[in-house]
């Protein structure tokens, strides 16, 4: 094939460099992390029993009018034991309503968890078969969703919500929501 001077080599080398750069930046990224596709979508409709109070049923309407942190947890999830004590501090934030989503757990074990680790949630949803989790696109525990007063999901965090995550990722967004955005 003809060589069109310097253009063809330049393009080839440019594409090559581009790939190397892309690969370089992709190294080290957590490949298991899945971004949520529900950001800025309304929370899914549901009707789920309360974990601790018999006969009480919750729906997505219960998220309206408040800023909610929905935490997906389970007694079989090791990281949840690490994360749970942090919620005690986050509960001090009067702007927030903390809701637990007990995911694919046995009621007895879940209640035991709350008894032993403490219950810092305003209420807990009992998602025994995991279907509610699937509605939220949950693929593991712990996961935490930030839901605004209109009932829209604004953020999802996969993994433990450490104080760093709370400070750097959640609080700024909560601020924004408070200001009406």
């Amino acid at each position: 094939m003809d060589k069109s001077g310097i253009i063809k080599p330049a393009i080839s080398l440019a594409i090559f460099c581009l790939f190397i750069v892309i690969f370089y930046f992709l190294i080290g990224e957590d490949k298991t992390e899945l971004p949520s596709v529900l950001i800025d979508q309304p929370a899914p409709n549901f009707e789920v029993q309360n974990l601790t109070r018999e006969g009480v049923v919750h729906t997505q309407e219960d998220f309206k009018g408040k800023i909610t942190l929905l935490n997906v947890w389970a007694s079989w999830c090791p990281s949840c034991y690490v994360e749970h004590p942090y919620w005690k501090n986050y509960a001090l934030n009067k702007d927030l309503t903390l809701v637990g989503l007990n995911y694919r757990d046995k009621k007895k074990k879940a209640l035991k968890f709350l008894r032993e680790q403490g219950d810092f949630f305003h209420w807990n949803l009992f998602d025994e078969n995991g279907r509610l989790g699937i509605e939220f696109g949950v693929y593991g525990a712990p996961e935490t969703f930030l839901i605004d007063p209109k009932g829209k999901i604004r953020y999802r965090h996969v993994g433990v919500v450490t104080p760093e995550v709370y400070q750097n990722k959640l609080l700024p967004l909560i601020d924004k929501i408070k200001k009406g955005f």
Partner: protein
Amino acid sequence: MLTITQTIKRLFMLFLLLFSFNGFAIEVYEFDDPILADRFKELTYELRCPKCQNQNLADSNSELSLDLKQIVYEKLKAGESDEEILLFMKHRYGEFILFNPEMSKSNALLWTGPIIFLMVFIIFFFRWYLKNREISDE
């Protein structure tokens, strides 16, 4: 006032709650209709396990995969179409869960890339061939 869809959804969830599973991994999905069985096979091959290392639902034994397979099973029995089931999964887990990439505008390059490559190649080749022919007859 609830719409009909919302009512059905609520009843469906209630139904699921009443007959929820005891956390026991049952893998057998029985269909009377072989066509449904085939569709089940196809769908579970096309859907990706969201938390595995590149496995489809059919091959994966993770709890989430079992849950999702169960959902596919129920939806097939309920008469939903393949598109509806795939859309259900995509709305919750994103395009990542589809092993068969959508034929959408954003994926245009993916589906047309190879054809374009081949065409460009052939065009370049013919131009070269016609310009550089030099056959000496014996």
